[in-house]
């Protein structure tokens, strides 16, 4: 059963459509720093946060090589393995730059993923809201909760 976890609700519809049409096993939408906004697909076999951090690193280092070569960037990257392939693509939406990490199996192909990735980008661009205005996040006395939380983490 495919599972989704969506932090930014506006990503759900284009992402769900992309996974259904491309046949991807798992797709993560994340910031360039590797923070996951949404995931859709079979995530049980993958450590999602580690995959996102590594995917963001691969894309960042490839972009840096592109810059050294005088390219603006590599807009997409893919690696094909024995059973799985990975595809990485970047796009700009009104909220900033995003990356997608797509893991696909033998029932899909890089061509199919690429074909529907362009549609995913358009969907995300249309659905993305503008940046929200700044507003306070944490209560003034957040330090006490933070200290309690860290103390419990470290068994103190």
């Amino acid at each position, binding site marked *: 059963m495919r599972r989704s976890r969506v932090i930014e609700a506006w990503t759900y519809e284009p992402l769900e459509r992309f996974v259904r049409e491309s046949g991807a096993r798992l797709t993560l939408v994340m910031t360039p720093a590797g923070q996951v906004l949404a995931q859709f697909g079979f995530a049980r076999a993958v450590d999602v946060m580690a995959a996102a*951090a590594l995917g963001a690193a691969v894309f960042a280092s490839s972009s840096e090589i592109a810059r050294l070569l005088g390219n603006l960037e590599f807009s997409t990257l893919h690696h094909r393995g024995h059973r799985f392939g990975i595809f990485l693509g970047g796009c700009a939406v009104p909220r900033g730059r995003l990356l997608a990490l797509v893991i696909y199996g033998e029932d899909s192909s890089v061509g199919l993923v690429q074909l529907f990735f362009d549609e995913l980008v358009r969907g995300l661009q249309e659905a993305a809201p503008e*940046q929200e205005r700044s507003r306070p996040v944490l209560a003034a006395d*957040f330090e006490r909760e933070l200290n309690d939380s860290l103390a419990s983490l470290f068994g103190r």
Partner: protein
Amino acid sequence: MSLVNFTTREITCKIVYYGPGRSGKTASLQYVYGRVPQDRRGRMVSLATETERTLFFDFLPLDLGSISGFTTRFHLYTVPGQLYYDSTRKLVLQGADGVVFVADSQVRQLDENIESLQGLQANLVAMGSDMRSMPMVFQYNKQDLPSELILTPTELDDALNFWALASHSSDALRGVGVFETLRAISERVLRKLSEEAPA
């Protein structure tokens, strides 16, 4: 840059452990990994060379639980300390919400500390930030070594800590000071987030 979602009430922040080679950045994360219960942390990813030197980064996601009603997560990263990995240090530093500068307290490592700190400032400036605006804490590691081999925290403050930021002595291999440093940087990152709060 921190990720704040008001609908799902989640916060994710990125903290980077920076400093010269072999100063104790990876050891600090390994200590945290070893102490934190399994259900409150993800897998620790280390991209290292065959000789266990950090090649690209170490990564450790931590779940702090609920703070002010927000599910709060920290992503801890280290950078490779060796001089010739500056381009990868820049990449890891991108999007950082806070920096822990792990200095090697040994007298003979002072120049390496200063050089690394200068590199940090240059990389932050290239990102449109600097050490005064970025939440930052110093961790003076290897304070367990014989006193004749190391500089005291006061001497290290004089040499490195120009803006009188928080500093903590540590022995990362045994975990001394690692918790205090993480608490200090966490407070600073969340306080800044609370003041600025880009959504």
